[in-house]
């Protein structure tokens, strides 16, 4: 260790600092010229809390809103895309029935991202798990890896997509948490459509957000918590 030339090292340190000071205003100006063109922040983590007590049995509004927003056909055949579906579960021992919406759970450690051979499946800095269709080769490993059966494959050629939601044959897709709406400062379509306010959307990392306060106050669970994926979607009253 003694042969490290300390003055030389400190010279490098100061010169790097000086260079940073010289370059920083340029970077700031560049950012300002581009207006709202900031990458999304990793400080945010978008999530949802679904209150099963408020979710009505037989109500399908969230699914309909999702289909309309994202241009899905709404059919539920084996080759049709479903980004969100209503699930009815019943406890055999007690007979208690619960109805809830099920979609991509936007895991912190998403298995779909682990298995993707082309890096098409990825988690955005703000916690939204997406498919980059420019890279997707349609191998469907992610569909097999997902414990929530949240992903669909597009089998047929599509036309007249929503300009905000590009979709196409040969790629895998799933709930995007309405990323195009979030980036505009809006809420996901399913959240907005729920007349009972059963879905609460917000930033899990902001301690003052409504969702963060609520998950601190009431008992909520992740589906398949044993997999320790730390899902962004949580359920209350399961």
């Amino acid at each position: 260790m003694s042969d490290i030339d300390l003055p030389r090292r400190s010279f490098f340190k100061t010169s790097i600092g000086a260079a940073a000071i010289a370059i920083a205003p340029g970077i700031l100006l560049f950012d300002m010229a581009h207006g709202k063109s900031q990458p999304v922040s990793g400080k945010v983590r978008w999530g949802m809390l679904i209150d099963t007590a408020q979710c009505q049995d037989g109500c399908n509004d969230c699914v309909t809103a999702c289909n309309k927003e994202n241009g899905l056909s709404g059919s539920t055949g084996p080759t049709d895309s479903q980004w969100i579906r209503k699930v009815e579960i019943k406890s055999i021992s007690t007979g208690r029935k619960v109805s809830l919406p099920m979609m991509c759970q936007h895991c912190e450690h998403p298995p779909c991202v682990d298995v993707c051979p082309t890096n098409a499946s990825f988690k955005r800095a703000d916690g939204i798990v997406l498919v980059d269709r420019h890279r997707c080769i349609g191998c469907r490993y992610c569909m097999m890896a997902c414990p929530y059966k949240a992903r669909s494959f597009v089998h047929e050629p599509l036309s007249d997509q929503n300009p905000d939601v590009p979709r196409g044959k040969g790629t895998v897709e799933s709930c995007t948490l309405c990323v195009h709406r979030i980036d505009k400062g809006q809420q996901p379509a399913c959240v907005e459509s729920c007349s009972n306010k059963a879905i609460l959307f917000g930033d899990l990392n902001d301690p003052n957000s409504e969702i963060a306060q609520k998950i601190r106050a009431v008992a909520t669970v992740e589906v398949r918590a044993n997999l320790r994926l730390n899902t962004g979607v949580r359920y209350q009253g399961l």
Partner: protein
Amino acid sequence: MKRFASLLLCFCASAAFAGAATGPKLDIGKGGQCVEDTQWMRKNHPQLLNHQRDETVRQGVRESKHSLKGCIECHASTQDNSVTARKDSFCVGCHSYEAVKLDCFECHSDKRQSAWLQRNAK
């Protein structure tokens, strides 16, 4: 002087021919001031679009300057609001002339967003 005149005539003629043979006639939509110089855009628009798409999809950068949606908003035909519907549509016209495959619109909408929203209003 005679030689100079014939030379001048030669130049004019070749310029006229060049003018006639600059490529397909396109329906440029609204047209007008583009985000970059026209000739530069002809050469470099794929790089711009590729760069912008990666930033948008993966980082959520959604500025309209070099976005595909921005291109379509200005350059879709004023008749059918599309950049691919007809032979002289903005994208298709050049791409078929140059025989370059255009696969953006297998996933992306080729329609002007304002028109799409109007049609699909609740």
